[in-house]
């Protein structure tokens, strides 16, 4: 990206604790309009914790997060949900609901106490289901569809929140390769088309360079480095973070950067 876009979310010196454990230590980073930031790091590095803090589930022990100029702590749950939407990992929750009902719950922050949708809510519902190609599953129960389809439903629900920032927690976990690739492609397309901003925790380092604009590497709750994939995904950084020796190559076809463990 040659032009640096306006930043939409500013994470400033965030720390978070679970009891005496410091799970996040002084994290600062900005997310810009229209970019995907990949969040990588070994298990327990703090990726999910950061998503919890940003989505208002976990109160930070220090620091501030601003979204479109507002501190997230000062926002009501509904006001925050209109700005930041979360795509959790596909889990067996809400299995009794139809796809359509589940996606409609993305409008919760706009609906009244009784949850009765208006004309605009239904329009956005249809749009979100079409974009993610779950409109053909509308009346199926969540418990009856595959993991890949469930993940698209959760993405549709997040789109229905009509928020400028999406947080995704390892969305390709437990998915077949086909679903992994198509989901990441879909996310990239949506970001480009709607000028959304995405912060996405990721596990597979080789998927990272193909999809994201920037990568943030977390180790032990600290932000080790952030930058373009080829700047962050160096053998030295990976060795340091994962205690695994890797070699970095350029893919001959795409010119993308990828990693291979040394045997």
């Amino acid at each position, binding site marked *: 990206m040659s032009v640096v876009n306006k930043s939409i979310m500013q994470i400033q010196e965030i720390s978070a604790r679970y009891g005496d454990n410091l799970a996040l230590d002084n994290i600062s980073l900005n997310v810009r309009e229209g970019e995907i930031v990949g969040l990588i790091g070994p298990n327990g590095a703090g990726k999910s914790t950061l998503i919890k803090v940003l989505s*208002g589930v976990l109160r930070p022990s220090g620091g501030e997060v601003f979204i479109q100029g507002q501190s997230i702590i000062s926002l009501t749950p*509904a006001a925050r949900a209109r700005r930041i939407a979360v795509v*959790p990992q596909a889990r067996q*929750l809400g*299995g*009794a609901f139809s796809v359509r009902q589940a996606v409609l719950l993305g409008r*919760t922050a706009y609906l009244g*106490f009784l949850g009765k949708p208006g004309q605009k809510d239904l329009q956005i519902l249809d749009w979100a289901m079409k974009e993610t190609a779950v409109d053909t599953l509308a009346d199926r129960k969540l*418990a009856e569809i595959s993991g890949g389809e469930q993940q698209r439903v959760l993405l549709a629900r997040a789109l229905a929140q009509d928020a400028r920032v999406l947080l995704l927690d390892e969305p390709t976990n437990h998915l077949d390769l086909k679903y992994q690739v198509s989901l990441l492609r879909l996310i990239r397309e949506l970001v480009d088309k709607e000028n959304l901003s995405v912060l996405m925790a990721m596990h597979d380092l080789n998927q990272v360079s193909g999809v994201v604009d920037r990568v943030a590497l977390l180790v032990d709750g600290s932000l080790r480095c952030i930058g373009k994939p080829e700047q962050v995904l160096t053998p030295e950084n990976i060795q340091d973070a994962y205690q695994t020796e890797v070699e970095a190559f350029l893919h001959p076809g795409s010119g993308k950067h990828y990693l291979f463990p040394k045997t």
Partner: protein
Amino acid sequence: MLLGAALVLSIALGAVTIPPGNALQILVSKFPGVEVDSIWPAYFETILWDLRLPHTILVALTGAALAGSGAAFQGLFRNPLADPYLIGVASGAGLGAIVIMSIPQAGRYLVPIGAFLGALGTIITVYQLAKVGKIVPLTTLILAGVAIGSFTSALTSFLMLISDQMVLQAMSFLLGGSTVTGWEPLAIALPYFTIGLALLTFSGHSLNVLQFGEEQARQLGLPVEKVKLFIIISASLTTAAAVSFSGVIGFIGLVVPHIIRILWGGDYRKLIPLSIIGGAITLLVSDILARIVMAPGYLPVGIVTALIGAPFFLWILRRAKKEVFW
């Protein structure tokens, strides 16, 4: 339709059988300006109007309250076993009611207030005990509820044992024998039931969002702690009303919502009102059986709901071809 039929049958049947046609005519004749030739014995009218009708309405409301609060608790805890008993609310209401009953000077009409205070006291205690930081995890809530429930039940039994003049009354109360008759107690009961049931009906959407877990509910923009408190208070109010006017009736709160779920799915905006109607029908039918089986005596309806309801539920469960999703 079913509810209407159950209501009419409940008015008609009993130790003295009034033909359902006559029962309907008597009801119609009570409307102002309606003239119906009375071709029935005068005592029919007394039995029907002064005894059966208020009793029937109370039974319907009790069934509605138990099933409605059961559905709400199940949705709140995302646990198919949850019902007013699991988190101690029913036991707390029972204790509150028994305490009032054991004070000879206290009138019968203080019982619902005692039950509501008992239910509310229990749920506040349980809520505080279960609180970890600013959040109330469901697991600790259930554990605290079971512990407090056992404690209040033990206190209730203790109170019953030390005051022997009330053992019989309390015994029938604990078995779910509705001993309240007449219009006056019904008038006292009505506000508790209507407010509680209305609040429960309104919480369907919030319960739907909570089905995805508290974390996702919060991320979707639901003020989770406030909503949980709202649902807990509404369900406690309804439970207290049911317990104080009709005694401890098990089973309805657990099973009726499940049958509704099997038949009509898990959308709480439908599940709550349908459970309320289903609970009313189920308890009315059980109550009719309770009156017929041992006529002219009266079998505590709690015994009937358990004896007939349990096998019926298992039969439905076996017959349900599709899986029941949670």
